[in-house]
Structures are given as structure tokens and as C-alpha cells.
């Protein structure tokens, strides 16, 4: 085993000498006379592979792709229209929600928290989330909240994808991206004390903890069968003892709320790992079922999820 490891290192050193430093095969072999006989055929193979795989994209494809990419760049740089409540400063958003609660009662906010993107109350749901985050003082609680909100976005993506609304899936994916980005920042700011902190946070009328994401309805056509074990991008394949199940929306809201609030660092990390593995797997399982027109948007959502959670996990480390 040790010899294998040593040979692997020598082989790689030779490859670096040839590929990076520009040495010839013969020059390289002079450094390793004892292994030369074994190295030579392998290095010849690599040189053949390199030569064969040096394919270039067609010029017409490159030109077309460049043009389309430049257009996408331009669109991204163009100013976006502000979302509902987006023009308000944070304090004003909080005030607006408080007024809504006072005027329409806590039931409105509770109903909004159940809403899906095609509902008239959905903007209230988004604004309420911002207020919850703004008024929560504990850093750990903010992390839990934000992670729960990210789970909500996944639920909404599932709902809209099943309805065949690719545009809305893209819009929610942007919101998901923002939530995961915020989550990375919040996790990065966590300190040791925060990780031991399980104190209560912002509360709404009736004493219900706002940090527990409110209940959401189960999307009508959400997959109910456990997803078949799916090899993830790292080659990780859940065994039969750990089936990948679809996002479940339970009392408490989202898979985070459904599994209880993380009270310690270990629980928090486990929850993040769970969401990081489960949410992309659920969306991937949907790819075969949704209309063709939604697949590209769903793939983008999966990419955003995977990249986002990867950053969150790194920040946790």
C-alpha cells in the first residue's frame, strides 16, 4: 500500500514535470531510474490522451455562445425592479408588517406564511420573513430562521415547477440564492457563544415563537413516495438505512421546523447537512416528472442549491 502511494506520487511528479515544466519523457525518466520501466508506458499513454483530448469548440458555436453570454451579462447588470416592500428601508418594512398585524390581525400574517408564490398574500410572507430576521437578536436563531426560509423556497420551487411555471421557478431561485448567501454570512459571523445559545427570539402575538417558521400547506402534487437513493455529485450514495426523502412540510414549517429547532452546534450542523443533501436530491428527483419547459429552470435551482449549501458548509467548518 505504501509503495503504491509512493509510486502514485512519483507518477504525478513526472506528469507535472512533463505537462507543466515542459520536460521530455526521457528527461523525466532520468530522475526516477528505478521506476523508469513502469513509468514509461504510463506516461506515453498520458501524452496520447492529452493529444487526443485537445478538442476545440467550433468557432461558430464559440461566437454564438459568446454573444448569448454577453446578452445575459447585460441583463444581469441592468437594474432590477424592486420587489414588493423592496423600496422601503428595513425599519419601515418592520413598521409596515406591525401595522398589517395590528390592522388585519395576526391571522393575516399566519395565513400569509402559508401562501405560495401565486397567492396574493405571498409578498406579506416574504416581508414577514425579513422582519423576523431583522428583529431576531440571537445569531444562532437568525441562522435557524434563514435556513428555514431557504427550505421554504425549495418547497415553493417544487410547487411552481409542478405547475409548469418556469419563470416563477427562476424568480424563486434568485430568492433562494439570496437566502443562502445571507445564511453563509450569518454562519460566518457565528461565534462560540452563539452556538451554545438556545434562547427565544422574536415572538408574535399569542407567544408563538416567530423563529419557528409558520406552517405551510403541502404543495398539491408534491412527491410523496420516498425518493430512490440517489448518488450525489461526490459519489455519495445514501444506503438503504438513510433514504432520501422529499421535502416534507410539517407543522413548524419546512424540513427545519419539522425536525425541531437546532439547539446546539451539532444539531445545527446536522440540520444543514440534511438540507444540503436532501433539498437538491428532491429537486433532482423531480426532473423526470416536470414539463420539459421547466427542466432548465429546475437545473439552475439545483446548481444554486448545491453551490449555496457548499458555501454554507464551508462557513460552518
Amino acid at each position, binding site marked *: 500500500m505504501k509503495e503504491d502511494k509512493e509510486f502514485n506520487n512519483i*507518477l504525478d511528479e513526472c506528469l507535472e514535470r512533463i505537462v507543466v515544466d515542459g520536460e521530455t519523457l526521457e528527461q523525466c525518466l532520468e530522475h526516477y531510474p528505478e521506476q523508469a520501466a513502469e513509468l514509461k508506458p504510463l506516461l506515453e499513454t498520458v501524452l496520447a490522451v*492529452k493529444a487526443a*483530448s*485537445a478538442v476545440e469548440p467550433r468557432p461558430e458555436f464559440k461566437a454564438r455562445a459568446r454573444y448569448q453570454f454577453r446578452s445575459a451579462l447585460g441583463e444581469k447588470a441592468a437594474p432590477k425592479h424592486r420587489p414588493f416592500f423592496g423600496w422601503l428601508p428595513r425599519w419601515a418594512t418592520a413598521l409596515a408588517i406591525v401595522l398589517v398585524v395590528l390592522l388585519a390581525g395576526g391571522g393575516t400574517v399566519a395565513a400569509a406564511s402559508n401562501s405560495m408564490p401565486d397567492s396574493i398574500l405571498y409578498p406579506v410572507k416574504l416581508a414577514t420573513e425579513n422582519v423576523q430576521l431583522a428583529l431576531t437578536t440571537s445569531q444562532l436563531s437568525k441562522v435557524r430562521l434563514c435556513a428555514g426560509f431557504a427550505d421554504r423556497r425549495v418547497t415553493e420551487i417544487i410547487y411552481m415547477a409542478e405547475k409548469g411555471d418556469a419563470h416563477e421557478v427562476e424568480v424563486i431561485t*434568485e430568492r433562494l440564492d439570496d437566502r443562502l448567501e445571507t445564511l453563509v454570512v450569518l454562519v460566518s459571523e457565528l461565534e462560540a457563544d452563539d452556538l451554545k445559545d438556545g434562547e427565544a427570539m422574536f415572538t408574535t402575538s399569542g407567544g408563538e415563537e416567530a423563529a419557528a417558521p409558520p406552517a405551510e400547506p403541502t404543495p398539491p402534487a408534491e412527491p410523496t413516495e420516498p425518493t430512490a437513493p440517489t448518488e450525489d455529485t461526490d459519489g455519495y450514495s445514501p444506503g438503504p438505512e438513510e433514504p432520501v426523502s422529499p421535502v416534507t412540510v410539517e407543522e413548524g414549517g419546512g424540513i427545519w421546523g419539522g425536525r425541531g429547532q437546532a439547539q446546539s452546534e451539532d444539531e445545527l450542523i446536522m440540520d444543514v447537512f440534511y438540507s444540503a443533501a436532501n433539498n437538491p436530491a428532491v429537486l433532482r428527483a423531480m426532473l423526470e416528472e416536470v414539463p420539459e419547459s421547466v427542466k432548465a429552470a429546475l437545473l439552475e435551482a439545483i446548481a444554486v442549491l448545491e453551490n449555496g449549501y457548499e458555501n454554507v458548509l464551508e462557513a460552518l467548518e
Partner: protein
Amino acid sequence: MQGEESLVQRAQKNDQEAFAQLYEEYFDKIYRYLALRIGNEMEAEDMTQQVFLNALRSISSFRWKGVPFSAWLFRIAHNQAVDHLRRKTKRASVPLDESLVSSGDSPHSTTERKIDIEQLLVATRRLTEAQREVISLRFSSELSIAQVARVMGKSQGAVKALQHSAIVALRRTMLVTEQ
């Protein structure tokens, strides 16, 4: 190219020129990686475009913190390739794409190159998924062992071992093909 970290930071602030430079730097490498992984020119083209559109969408979520931009970008390509291949295995296998040739070559060298590519594609199909990934990233896209390890989420030692076993397997297969 200007310092990559600075370019990425500018791209994250919607600097079009910075992102365009990153695009030019990595476009061919990503295409070569996908061409070898997928073995189909048209599909590799579509997926290359999609990789950069996805990167554009999610560049704001990228955090440097020791992860090179290349590893992040190839990770997007890797994820797309995995999704694509998973869907493809559910359908009938597609024959090798004979159009995967270097368009700038002379007729003679094109014929030679084409044979080599066909041999290579056939040979890589006998590799495991992880071995094929290492060969594509290491020799087609010219990533370092450390970068390949980041993309694949494996240790450098594991990647070196995969590299060794993949080269041995390729050598064996290509010798048989030649005979």
C-alpha cells in the same frame, strides 16, 4: 490574465468585463472537460453554455476562502455532467459522436486526431465514473491534482490513486484496441 481573485470580486459586483475575462479564460477548458465526459459535441456545447449561465447566476454566492474559482466553476460543470449522464443512462446509449474533431486541423491530421478521439472515448467508457472524471479534469482541462481534488470532493491522495489506476486501465484498453 489579471489576478483571478480580483477579477472574481469585480464579477461579483456585476463588472461585465471582469466576468467576460473569466469566461474567455475557462470556456475552452470547460468545453473539453464536458466533451470528454459526455462524448457528444452538441450536448457538450449546450452544457458549456449552461455552465457559464449558471455561474453568472450564482457568482454572488461564491466565497473565495481557499476554494479556487476554477474548482467552483468545474464543480458546476461536474454537477451538470452527473445530472446529464444519470438521465442518459435511463435512455438508450447514444453512439460516439464522430464530429468531435479539431476543426482547425489539416485533413490528414484531422483523420489521425479523429481516430485518437474515438479510441479515447471508447477506452474511457471502460473506466469507472470517478476515473473518467479524473482523466477529463487532469488531462483534458489541465487542472492540478489539488484542483481536481476540490472539484471531486476527494483527498489528493485518492485522486492520485484514481489517476494511476485510470492510466493503467486506459493503457490496457488502448493496447487491445490497437491489436
